[in-house]
């Protein structure tokens, strides 16, 4: 099988992007991704799109984006794995290049969530558990699903609301330095703790915002990397994948995500690394409790010790393993299908030491990890990158 590298990247500004439609927004990511690869749209034989959709008007976003960006004629697909749709698209395109079906592939993540009202967005995401058994009669929301996890984690391990607030404070601090982030203001623990309750015990600042945004990466085979004389490829060492039950009631516990655990074991084994080799990570912090559980499920610490990592500053720059230095979903924003692609754009920059020094992780092994979850741990992907 071919080795696969990221050779180019692009990223739109995240936030309320009512100034552009889905195709125009995607162009903001696709154009720099192609340009930084030294390619034109006509040279791309295959494009995979990560997008959940429903909140914007186009039911076939892949064809609309491809036409607008000059990619008509390429093989096209839209991938759905809920909030992990971006990594599902990466995995799809990676498989195409890895297997030798094509030497180049473009991955786009694009989502426009601000075209409808907030409570309808809450409704559409809330329906994305097991609709029949959890929404129709019980009106679950995503904050509520993660609140079920927070409550058991707090009961079992003594994690506190203040610990959760500290995750938000950290991610806002880095988000404030990231020019493409949706929320660019620093916050305090007090501000987070005093923010309005959304689903007890999760408050407004425990939740990621609803965002518009696009991101893109160009993938190439080793042969193409040489042919194009790419100087600084970032290699995809492995992509681990797994899933969990549709019904939340069928899980064994609510203190972690099994899909993350399994996907990470797979990714570490294939890349032949252990968690301590990772220089920088982006984890799926759709809610603050999700970041704490991710530390544990990814093996950055033992199960139950996640809150210690945030208390001790282990996941800040200078700590054991810096996490979400772009602000994470919490502050950078979470355009659902874009997130997995956005993580790879950020980690490519980190590995190439391209970001502002104040949010650059120190590099020892030049190894980075991206963790992307869909639903409430329904879909799990862990990607290992190496420069």
């Amino acid at each position, binding site marked *: 099988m071919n080795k696969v590298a990221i050779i180019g990247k692009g990223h739109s500004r995240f936030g309320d992007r*009512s*100034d552009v439609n889905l195709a125009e927004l995607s162009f903001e990511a696709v154009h720099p991704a192609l340009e930084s690869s030294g390619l034109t749209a006509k040279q791309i034989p295959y494009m995979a799109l990560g997008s959940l959709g429903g909140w914007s*008007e186009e039911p076939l976003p892949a064809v609309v984006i491809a036409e607008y960006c000059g990619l008509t004629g390429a093989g096209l697909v839209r991938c759905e794995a809920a909030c992990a749709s971006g990594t599902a698209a990466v995995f799809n395109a990676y498989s195409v290049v890895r297997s030798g079906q094509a030497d180049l592939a473009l991955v786009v993540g694009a989502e426009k969530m601000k075209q409808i*009202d907030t*409570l*309808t967005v*809450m*409704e559409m995401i*809330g*329906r994305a558990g*097991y609709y*029949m*058994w*959890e*929404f*129709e*009669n*019980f*009106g*679950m*929301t995503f*904050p*509520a699903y993660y*609140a*079920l*996890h927070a*409550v*058991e984690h707090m*009961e079992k391990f003594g994690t506190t609301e203040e610990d959760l607030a500290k995750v938000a404070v950290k991610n806002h601090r880095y988000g404030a330095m990231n020019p493409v982030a949706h929320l660019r203001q620093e916050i305090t623990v007090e501000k987070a703790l005093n923010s*309005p*309750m*959304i*689903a*007890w*015990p*999760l408050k407004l600042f425990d939740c990621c915002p609803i965002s518009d945004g696009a991101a893109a990466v160009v993938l190439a085979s080793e042969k193409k990397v040489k042919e194009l004389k790419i100087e600084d490829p970032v290699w995809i060492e492995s992509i681990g994948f797994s899933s969990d039950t549709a*019904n*939340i*009631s*069928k*899980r064994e516990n*609510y203190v972690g995500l099994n899909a993350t655990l399994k996907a990470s074991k797979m990714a570490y084994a294939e890349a032949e690394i252990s968690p301590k080799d990772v220089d920088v990570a982006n984890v799926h912090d759709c809610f603050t409790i999700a970041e704490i559980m991710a530390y544990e499920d990814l093996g950055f610490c033992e199960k139950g010790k996640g809150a210690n990592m945030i208390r001790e500053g282990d996941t800040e720059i200078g700590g054991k393993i810096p996490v979400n230095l772009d602000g994470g979903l919490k502050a950078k924003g979470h355009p659902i299908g874009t997130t997995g692609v956005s993580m790879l754009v950020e980690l490519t920059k980190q590995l190439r030491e391209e970001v502002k020094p104040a949010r650059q992780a120190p590099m020892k092994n030049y190894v980075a990890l991206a963790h992307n979850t869909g639903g409430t741990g329904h879909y799990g992907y862990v990607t290992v990158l190496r420069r």
Partner: protein
Amino acid sequence: MNKTPSLKSNRPLTITYNLPISKTSKFWKKLKEGKVFATACKKCGKLHFPPVADCGECGSSEIEWVKLNGNGKIVTFTEVIVKPASFSKEPQYIVAVAELIEGVRVLAWFRGIEKEKIEIGMKVKLKAKVCSDEKIAYEFVPV
């Protein structure tokens, strides 16, 4: 502040799904009679809640209906403050997951109790809840 120019779509879409329940209709019929049932696989014995017509564990489609006694313990819970659009007229609600003595877990609203009085591990009863012919569900109540 200047508003970003946009067109309002003239084509609103209202969707109401018909939910197919013919293979598990007994569940809904029994709920109306005040009883909560699960299904058990006749081949491998696996007890399923929510009820199913086919067993994902062993692939058998031979199932039998089993009445749940309803006694269980709270595993975790939350109170939904910001509600989805279609629940906007409902008062705030508490959602809990409880493990029943039969071993299956159920997610449902926990009613008749204040959030402050709920503790993980506390005993609850799962009961059928019939509001009208069209609106049938189940809920937890304190023991």
